[in-house]
């Protein structure tokens, strides 16, 4: 299937469809000043898809994701999450977000366990405490990301790779369908990148989470990404060559 052609059509974003894309941009334009950073961008990220977003620094990758997550509002066009306009979207537990270098900014010691628990806050509401099934989920994501043994360590004393895995565990604690990672390999050494990559492979293959991976470093997503989109000069281009759909067996073999 030629995915580039499908993106240009921009269909399938209608609300209330059960198979609505995880994220959909319809002719979105945005600028911090009068000069647009993004011009009439359309794209879709479907369920279970791994999409890498690349481009030079300052091209608008993070801006695009901040629009997708409702942290910024489009000047023109519509952004939808799971078919709902992002302004009306309420099921935020379905989205996990790992901002760039979030863990290293901690001034005071915050243990890995405490960091992961903060991921539940939006889902629980202001006054509810975590229940046993929430605690089970916490244990699951700590194990999944290989940070269970570090639960009592302060996150700002961990290596870059360990911090990223703890933050991904936090993003996964509500069992989301879409995970957005902003420059997850910044400040992460080669060994830790390998561990991070294995964890992401597991997420896509076993947990069936859609992933949007923002990076200027292709090493982190090569062989993992279904599509690579480049943000440049306000436009988004699909760099992935048209190819036939791989069977699940071929996909597994490739990895």
């Amino acid at each position, binding site marked *: 299937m030629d995915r580039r052609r499908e993106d240009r059509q921009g269909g399938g974003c209608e609300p209330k469809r059960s198979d609505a894309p995880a994220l959909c941009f319809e002719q979105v334009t945005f600028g911090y000043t009068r000069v647009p950073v993004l011009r009439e961008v359309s794209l879709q990220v479907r369920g279970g898809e791994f999409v890498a977003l690349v481009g030079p620094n300052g091209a608008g990758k993070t801006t695009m994701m901040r629009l997708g997550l409702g942290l910024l509002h489009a000047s023109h066009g519509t952004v939808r999450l799971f078919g709902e306009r992002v302004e009306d979207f309420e099921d935020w537990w379905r989205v996990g*977000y790992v*901002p760039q270098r979030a863990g290293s*900014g901690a001034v005071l010691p915050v243990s890995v366990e405490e960091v992961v628990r903060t991921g*539940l*806050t*939006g889902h629980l509401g*202001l*006054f509810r405490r975590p229940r046993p099934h929430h605690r089970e989920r916490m244990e699951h994501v700590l194990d999944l990301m290989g940070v269970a043994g570090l639960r*009592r360590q302060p996150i700002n004393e961990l290596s870059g790779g360990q911090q990223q895995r703890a933050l991904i565990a936090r*993003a996964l604690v509500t069992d989301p369908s879409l995970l957005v990672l902003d420059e997850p390999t910044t400040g992460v050494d080669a060994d830790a990148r390998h561990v991070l990559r294995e964890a992401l492979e597991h997420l896509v293959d076993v947990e069936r989470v859609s992933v949007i991976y923002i990076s200027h470093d292709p090493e982190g997503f090569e062989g993992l990404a279904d599509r690579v989109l480049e943000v440049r000069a306000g436009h988004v281009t699909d760099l992935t060559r048209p190819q036939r759909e791989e069977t699940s067996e071929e996909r597994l073999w490739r990895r």
Partner: protein
Amino acid sequence: MEALSYEFMQRSIIATTLVCAVAPLVGAFVVQRRQALIGDGVGHVAFAGVGLAFVTGTNPFVGALLLTLLAAYALFRMERRGRLGGDLALAMIFYGGIALGYLFTQRAGGGLNSVVGFLFGSPNNLTWGQVWAIAALCLGVLVVIVALYGPLVSIAFDEPAARVSGVPTDGLQLILTVVVALIVVGGMYALGILLVAGMMVIPVAASSQLSRSYRGTMLGGSLVGVGCALTGAIGAFYADVPTGSAIVLLAVGCYLAAAVLRAARQRYAVGSSRRAATV
């Protein structure tokens, strides 16, 4: 103990201990949000409130509370616009506040002693009514912190991620700034407008040297605060020094001791791992 036999000392100890127990709990959130000086800024505005109360003949407690709550809302609006920190408008509010406060107090014929009392605290002159008002404010702040502990940790640690996960970050920011205003007003008589902000931050900085979790840092900060308040208030009585200064200097001493202890612990840990590697 002789100090405890005086009623003015009992009032002083109760008020300073309550403020120093609760202030670090609030301080942990503002330090993590890199707003360590917000308490100091709100204190400047509280001084304007005190001055306004002198001019209008109302209770300084009420004047300070009204103006600091207004300042809290103004700060919240500025922060929402992403202009907090290094913003000139913020500096205008703070320095304008202290200038206005001094102008008002002079205009109302307030003596230098009363001004110094509000700036640096006069816990030995507290009435029981003031002690109960301080206790009520501290209790209110404690209830808010305990009830909203999880959501406040999430916005203190990573606000963008908290916002995306559906946490009402705007409302929580406003609540946190209001709570800062309440603790500054609560500590105004006991520690003074300029020193109470120090007890929000320094005990937290001290306990963070030795703690490995956020909860531990908060509770440790509160314990350091209580220890400094009890020791400082009683020590100041015998040494005949100002109570607020004694408490804050003790907290600075705790920070230095904790920093030395941390460095020693790290050196020991490095030494142990080297010895293990050699063996």
